[in-house]
């Protein structure tokens, strides 16, 4: 994104619910720049991703420069600039999960959901990603679907979950 040019942006709207949350949050912080990351979360929760227009909007709401929002959007793994699949399947890749078979679990989701690693399926339904340790190593392998943690996802469980995910699409 070229931040030196003023681009003509599409109009950007947020729900009143999100605006309310933002209005309550900003005055609690000693400095508006600190609210950039929480705002990115709120915007992503509503829109699914953080567009250029969203970056401009957040910057102007906080009276900071767009680059200051952009630098965090491009750094943090959880923030994204593009939409992803309707269901986001994140498999822990790190050691304790790997010792319990997370490599196989990940291949299973990829195969069953017809989805490349760190990619979205052609029908736009699923995104399958490897992520690093999500602090539940005692119940490895763990995965997260959207914001929900699933523990002890062995190969059999993974197959069942994948087929349920597909079923839900058919319905």
């Amino acid at each position: 994104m070229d931040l030196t040019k003023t681009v003509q942006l599409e109009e950007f709207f947020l729900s009143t619910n999100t605006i309310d949350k933002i209005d309550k949050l900003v005055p609690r912080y000693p400095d508006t720049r600190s609210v950039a990351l929480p705002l990115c979360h709120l915007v992503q929760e509503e829109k699914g991703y953080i567009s250029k227009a969203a970056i401009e909007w957040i910057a102007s709401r906080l009276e900071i420069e767009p680059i200051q929002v952009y630098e965090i959007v491009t750094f943090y793994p959880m923030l994204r600039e593009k939409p992803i699949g309707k269901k986001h399947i994140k498999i822990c890749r790190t050691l304790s999960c790997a010792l319990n078979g997370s490599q196989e679990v990940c291949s299973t989701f990829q195969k069953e959901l017809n989805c490349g690693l760190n990619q979205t399926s052609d029908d736009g339904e699923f995104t399958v990603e490897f992520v690093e340790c999500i602090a539940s190593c005692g119940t490895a392998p763990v995965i997260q679907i959207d914001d929900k943690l699933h523990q002890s996802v062995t190969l059999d469980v993974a197959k069942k979950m994948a087929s349920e995910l597909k079923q839900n699409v058919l319905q």
Partner: protein
Amino acid sequence: MAVSEHRLLLKNVDQPGYETDIDCYVKHGGYEMLKKAYTMKPEEICSEVMDSGVRGRGGAGFPAGLKWKFLDRKSGKPIYLICNADESEPGTFKDRQVIYKDPHQLIEGMMITAFAIQAKLAFIYIRGEMFGGARILEKAIEEARSQNLLGDHILGSDYSCDLIVHRGAGSYICGEETGLIESIEGKRPYPRIKPPFFPAVLGLYQCPTIVNNVETLCNVKHIVEMTGKEYAKLGKPNNTGTRIWSVSGHVQKPGYYEFECGALTYGELIYDVCGGLKPGRKLLALIPGGSSSKVLRAGERFKGKLKDGTAFDWALEDIPLDFDGPMAAGSMSGSGAVIILDDSVDIVEVLANINAFYAHESCGQCTPCREGSLWLKKVTTRMCAGNAREEDAELIESIAKQIDGRTICAHGEATAWPAMSFIHKFRDEFKDKAIKQAANLDKKPEDFIHLV
């Protein structure tokens, strides 16, 4: 020997009927210690914490009382308190238990601490992936606010302090305290150089700031309850209190267990508490304090003298489960995350998996860490892909040595130490990889669990 848990912080966690709402917490004696704290002078609470000897549970094991003492109170700038709830060191899942199952305990510990250090504002920096945890904490904070336990004029006093839940977004380096501070300031979490940026002097917004781990802050509540002197009787000198250990990997019963520091050994943890290894398996190695700590190999002897002068001669299984034991054995207890490896693993793949983590998580500020972590990953990944070379062991060692001690933050060591220790302890396995591959002897069984 049957060792039983000593549940201080986890007393109510997992008890039937114990809920996360404030009524349940108060019914179990909750917030009485906050009230007690308000009958004390802030300095008195600080000196109780000093007397307790409690060491930080986040990784470095620095005494909390001493850290609070370094707080620059003369500057006249506002003081901030931050709870490090990033829980990002691989293998660690203890803070999660408190956050999800007993959030008010953390809030009480924090509001006592905030009062003790006279913080103007407090934050809980929680890792972004804990969506549910953040919601639970936010709800708990509103409940506490409605009962005047935080916010304006707490318990009718002159003291006010808000508590904000600030979510991370999937980056390990936000667990490093100065990276965390940058993250709260709304920037990329690039760690700051120490000195001068010791948080207690130049922390959040360049103001004096205390950063403590979830478990450390919960302990403050129990220190106020027991007094520092009584708390110090738990555990051993220099290793006081209880600790929550996260056990994962190749044991029958992985999980979180709370014990008095030094009440048992790593061997007892594995065999008595965690049900031992999987059938037919032998212990190969153990990572004693999260993936950044140095690996310890089964069969090794650890000899030397403890700080108090007593000589020790331990097998891996004899190392005491505390702060000083693993340190004396050449590693560290770090975040209390114990990862067990049995003889079914390919040790090169273990290191390759660890290297991939640190390569992914380097913030990129320092060349040795940014480039070195990627090289380490590249070399070990290549070795696992069937292209190992005999000189790889030396190559890994040389890369790691060029990172160690040459970076802004301890992520450099977190990257270098596993690599160095794996080569040190398993040099033959790393050297033999190439020979075996050349002779087609590195084939794995059908059901082999690959780590990369």
